[in-house]
């Protein structure tokens, strides 16, 4: 096995492969949504549109073309951009063009960009929670192995994995907002608008998602810490009189954290697609909610667009995680 770190070509190869998979995925989704019941033109126009109007809308949305022509246009938009004329004006949709929403004539890219800050706010904040809470808990239960502390923590983390996020969020909202009134009922405020209000309103969603994820991280941290603690090099430093604290912080943690960090990167990636249930629960106008809403209204371009963005985020996150992991643990060979 080669020891040299060969990150760049590896990542490039990975991304290329993933791009292909994403394209296939987009195609499959595209095809899938063709089968969804409902005439998109009628839906977009409104139920009391005249047949002539529906036909006109159909033409504008490009729905009068054959399925494969529409798909080709979609691909063309994706790689070269395309124009949409809407009578009054011609809208240019620049290169990674995911099309126009059928519900309102906005560009899908615009809608996604609009949802991104909220989703990112949620994901990053939650990550802070799970990294502190989850990793802390996991570490504690690994170090107190066999003790009562560990048992309590184990039950708590198991409970965490056993609670669906919507129940957790509901209970938290009940307790914190209704009974104790420590926090407002969350209502998203953009960071750019009012940082303090943003944080205040996001606190509960962060806690909910963070707590929910914490359980997983506690388990991972615990098992990976235990694994490292059982490794021979830990024994070496113990046998050389290095204090237990130094052994844990300097040697065990260093070995235990890479998988945690890698998983964080991956989770962060998949949350870019929105932690759907959490966003729905707290009314956070992120990508997850955009996706649910557009699936319901059969807004094909938005669905395909969001899924592509999610897929890309996931793939990138995976590659980043691999690289982080390899940087942290040079023994892992990228292949």
């Amino acid at each position: 096995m080669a020891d040299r770190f060969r990150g760049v070509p590896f990542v490039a190869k990975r991304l290329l492969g993933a791009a292909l998979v994403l394209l296939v995925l987009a195609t499959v989704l595209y095809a899938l949504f063709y089968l969804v019941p409902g005439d998109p033109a009628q839906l977009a126009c409104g139920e009391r549109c005249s047949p002539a109007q529906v036909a006109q809308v159909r033409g504008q949305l490009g729905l009068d073309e054959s399925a494969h022509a529409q798909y080709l246009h979609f691909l063309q938009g994706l790689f070269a951009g395309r124009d949409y004329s809407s009578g009054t004006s011609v809208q240019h949709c620049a290169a990674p063009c995911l099309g126009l929403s059928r519900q309102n004539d906005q560009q899908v890219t615009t809608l996604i960009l609009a949802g991104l800050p909220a989703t990112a706010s949620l994901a990053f904040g939650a990550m802070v929670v799970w990294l502190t809470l989850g990793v802390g808990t996991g570490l504690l239960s690994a170090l107190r192995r066999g003790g009562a502390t560990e048992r309590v923590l184990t039950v708590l983390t198991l409970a965490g994995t056993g609670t669906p996020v919507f129940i957790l969020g509901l209970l938290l909202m009940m307790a914190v907002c209704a009974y104790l009134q420590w926090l407002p009922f969350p209502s998203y405020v953009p960071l750019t608008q009012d940082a303090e209000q943003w944080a205040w309103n996001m606190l509960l969603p962060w806690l909910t998602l963070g707590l929910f994820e914490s359980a997983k991280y506690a388990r991972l941290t615990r098992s990976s810490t235990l694994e490292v603690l059982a490794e021979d090099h830990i024994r070496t430093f113990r046998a050389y009189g290095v204090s237990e604290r130094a052994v844990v912080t300097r040697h065990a943690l260093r070995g235990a954290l890479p998988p945690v960090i890698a998983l964080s990167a991956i989770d962060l990636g998949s949350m870019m697609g929105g932690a759907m249930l959490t966003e729905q629960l707290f009314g956070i106008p992120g990508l997850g909610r955009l996706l649910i809403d557009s699936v319901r209204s059969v807004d094909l371009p938005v669905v395909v667009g969001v899924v592509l963005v999610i897929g890309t985020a996931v793939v990138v996150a995976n590659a980043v995680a691999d690289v982080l992991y390899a940087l942290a643990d040079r023994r892992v060979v990228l292949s």
Partner: protein
Amino acid sequence: MRDRRLLFQRAAVTTVALVLLGGLAACSGPQDGDAKPAAGDAKPAKGGKLTVLNSDTQSDFDPARLYTSGGGNVPSLVFRTLTTRNREAGEAGTEVVPDLATDLGTPSENATVWTYTLKKGLKFEDGSPITSADVKYGVERSFAAELSGGAPYLRDWLIGGDSYQGPYKSGKGKKTLDSIETPDQRTIVFRLKKSVGDFPYLATQTQFTPVPRAQDTGTKYEEHPVSSGPYKVVRNTNDGERLQLERNPHWSEKLDDQRKAYPDTVDVRSGLDSAVINQRLSTSSGDDANAVTTDTNLGPAELAQIGQDKSLKARVGVGHFGYTNYLAFNPDVKPFDKPGVRQAISYAIGRSSVINAVGGSSLAEPATTFLPDQKAFGYTPYDHFPAGKNGNPEKAREALKKAGYKNGLTITLTHSTEEGEMGPKVASAIQQSLAKAGITVKLKGLEGNAYNEKRWDADGSPGLFITRWGADWPAGYPFLAPIFDGRQIVKDGANFNNAKLDDPAVNKEFDEISGLTDLDAAAKRWGALDSRIGEQALTVPLYHPVYQRLVGKNIRNVVISDWTGVLDISQVAVK
């Protein structure tokens, strides 16, 4: 017609609605004297900021695309129309009154020509005068396909409306609609294909809002529509998710006797979960004390909880809106072609369990007539197939026997799988009440969109399904015509005449009444027509919904008219 919103309703999604009703009691705290019961005691004053908490985003904010009843709520703060609804509570609120126009319009040539005169001195938000050409242009652009979404009446009634495709270059043919004339800057004349007595009602819709042609940006106009009302749009964030409005300095109180416009600014926040909205209103902390909602009701669980809290109860306003939830038949499907079967089902229906399934008697009143129980519609009480609260199985069996089904029969009831008015709970309630009469009901659930498509499919609609109908304005015509006028059977689009009733006598009656400009006289005849059609048991009216609206604790001057059933935000004050 109000069914459209359904299309995009987040129905199932709102199931995530967790109503932390709990908070209601706990949060209201020591505020016994705080709660201001609806309209009344202290005099409302100008100033302050009103917050509106809504669940549906105002993603359409173009007057051409809005489908409103009476001009809408938030839209009517920005858009004035030729006429508007009377801004008063209850029954008085069902009247139509002049807005931009000096009166309700002058009909001539047997009500096929309607002439309006604009008030003097009307101005847009930029200070430029509002002319009749602006109103005409506003109506014209609503014909453009890219601005579709409004009600179909203009297209059906205006001469040349069916072929006109709007003023933009995308549309074919002429760019102007000649049946709208503007002889001078203040006068506008509409020429119709037939006599329409209801035209003043139609003129309340936002398509009658003046739009300055020079500032029309097509599909982008909704980002910043030019205001003619008391407020103008300062900021439209995220496609209508947040609208920030402030006073329009060029609006004159003297020229608008309907809108009170007490608050200085209005902040509309939408995309919220309905549970969260009600929770925030009940907690009323911070800005939420000055908050109202224009689209969210109290749900059953919230009502169950609120019943225990007097101070909260005082902040709840009750609203009615012309709406009927009913069972529809497609007589093309056997055995619903037999009146006896339809009658049997009408007899067997147990309305109280249906009502319980949608939230109980505080949220729904049993309906035996198709027309809503409001005077404006011409409500004439009748109960042709008395079923009582829980159904009348004996009469039902009798009717069945007459129709030739001695041993009962098996039918299929189609419903939406999304929980709600047309959802599985209502379906089960119907199933169980019909079972008592020996009618075995098989349930067939369809996913939301598919269900709607089926409901509106003239040829393929199911034999028996749950549906609903609402009023575009409080009059008999828009309530009855789409459902029972044989000429409104739509073959290649959304059809609402599910029974496909095409009775020349009925059709003639429709034409006659709709031409009446005496609205009271018309109402009486609508009532009689409803009763007459009811005898055929083409529908089984189930209930009329009732709305319970909660407001923030500082809100004064709560006005809920029977036209909309929602509190009118042009009337509320926060000081």
